[in-house]
């Protein structure tokens, strides 16, 4: 019985993770939950007392899906940058991988698949904690887990495609500061984008994170808007598909020259 090549790529990542997961617990679980406590309960108490509900939700309910998806994005961005460059440039284990019956394209897809699996697990735990804190009013909230994973995929596919081409990591901190951090803050995570200056709002609308946050919030609150939600999914799927197609090219070019 044969195992698909992309799954065999995932096996390696899962093996490494099984040894190193303790080191990731803080950044992927504890930190988001601390954010949830500080923002949702601490700041949220103030918001609720002064302005009433945000889009009809308590602030905790508003911010929980945003934090969940945004932390999936952060995991994805991190995993798609330094580890990819390391595997092709410093340790060179990607070169060893493609000397087997695994092709570079399969490696590219398998690597993204692994990030998706990791995001699924991290998001499930986060959602459970959020639900216990009363941040998830609807049972549809479970759908926010695949939404977070889709968001992780939409970021990690193009970013890993980009990272594999590099010879140094100098651009990574820039991407984190100029790309990931502003998205984290201004994609409807902590407040509705209607609060943004008018000229900035169109930018937020095309951001994959905003689309994912809106979807996740639709799920955790059980209020869907079919047309808009299909559009949100479409934006994420376009990012993912474009990223995978690009990644298959850049992985092939970098690993077979």
């Amino acid at each position, binding site marked *: 019985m*044969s*195992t698909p*090549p992309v799954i*065999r790529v995932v*096996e*390696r990542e899962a*093996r*490494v993770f099984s*040894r*190193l997961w303790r080191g990731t617990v803080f950044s992927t679980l504890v930190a988001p939950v601390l954010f949830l406590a500080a923002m949702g309960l601490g700041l949220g108490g103030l918001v609720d007392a002064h302005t009433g509900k945000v889009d009809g939700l308590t602030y905790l309910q508003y911010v929980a899906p945003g934090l969940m998806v945004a932390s999936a994005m952060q995991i994805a961005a991190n995993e798609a940058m330094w580890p990819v460059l390391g595997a092709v440039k410093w*340790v*060179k*284990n990607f*070169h*060893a*991988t*493609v*000397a*087997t*019956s*695994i*092709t570079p394209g399969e490696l590219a897809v398998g690597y993204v698949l692994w990030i998706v699996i990791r995001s699924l697990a991290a998001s499930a735990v986060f959602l459970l904690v959020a639900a216990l804190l009363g941040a998830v009013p609807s049972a549809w909230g479970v759908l926010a887990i695949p939404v977070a994973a889709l968001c992780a995929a939409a970021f990690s596919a193009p970013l890993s495609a980009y990272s594999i081409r590099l010879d140094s990591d100098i651009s990574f901190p820039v991407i984190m500061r100029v790309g990931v951090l502003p998205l984290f803050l201004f994609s409807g995570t902590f407040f509705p984008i209607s609060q943004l200056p008018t000229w900035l709002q169109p930018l937020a609308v095309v951001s994959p994170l905003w689309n994912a946050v809106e979807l996740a919030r639709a799920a955790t609150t059980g209020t869907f808007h079919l047309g808009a939600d299909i559009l949100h999914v479409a934006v994420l799927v376009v990012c993912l598909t474009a990223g995978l197609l690009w990644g298959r090219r850049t992985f092939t070019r970098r*690993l*077979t*020259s």
Partner: protein
Amino acid sequence: MPDPLIVAHALTKRFGGFVAVDGIDFVIAPGEAFGFLGPNGAGKSSTMRMIGCVSPVSGGTLRVLGMDPAADGAQIRRRLGVVPQEDNLDTELTVWDNLMIYGRYFDLPRAEIRRRAEELLEFVQLSDRRDSRVDPLSGGMKRRLTIARALINQPEVLLLDEPTTGLDPQARHMLWERLYRLKQDGVTLVLTTHYMDEAEQLCDRLVIMDGGRIVAEGSPRELVATHATREVVELRFARAADQSDALARVRALAPRVEAVADRLLVYTDDGDATAAAIAGDGVGAASVFVRRASLEDVFLILTGRTLED
């Protein structure tokens, strides 16, 4: 002769305008140990990467195990073992997991990989390090683990790119001995090296490469017999000026003299007689040393340069 395993015709590799491999032909038969000998930059690694189906052919034809790397790369790689020039072991995994994961890349069943991994660690004498991480291993141990990893899919052909570069003499000899055993077991070895002693130790047949081309082909013995003389007299001088002064006088005594940085090499069929003639002529060499000709000399005669250049 059985069907060849690897056939190259006018094989070419270009990187932009740079021609790394310039239209070479070679045929490698099952069970033989075939070498590419040449200095750095001769095109050996580029050739190996094309055979390993991780570098597209720019021109000419290449068939590996009867298949075309462009069309059947994954099928071919399934039956190859690759020991690259630079260690690329997975430093995030243990010795044991390096073998397990690599076996999984070939889609082998776990029980089978475990069985082979036990045997291979025994074979490369790393059984006691199976739970160690990769980083603390010595250079020789890493190379041996890389060889074990390359054998996990029981390859028909083992590609070794500069297998002992950077190793100390003891580690090199241990590696040669393992490779010799593989050859006895019928594994076809294809290796590159810029060490002539390695080529002489391991290769049944080899090609000498220089500047992307093959300049000679044959068994180590044939190559020496065809292109060099039986013996070589090495003359060293106290000062560089002495060496250039002596060159013309030595040339008058022997037809073939090569001057390298620190010595003159005089090619002759009777080393002792030539050494005596040189001494009688009053060439003031600081040291005179007679030895048998080697592949190093073949390379020097064919290209005018040494392998280490």
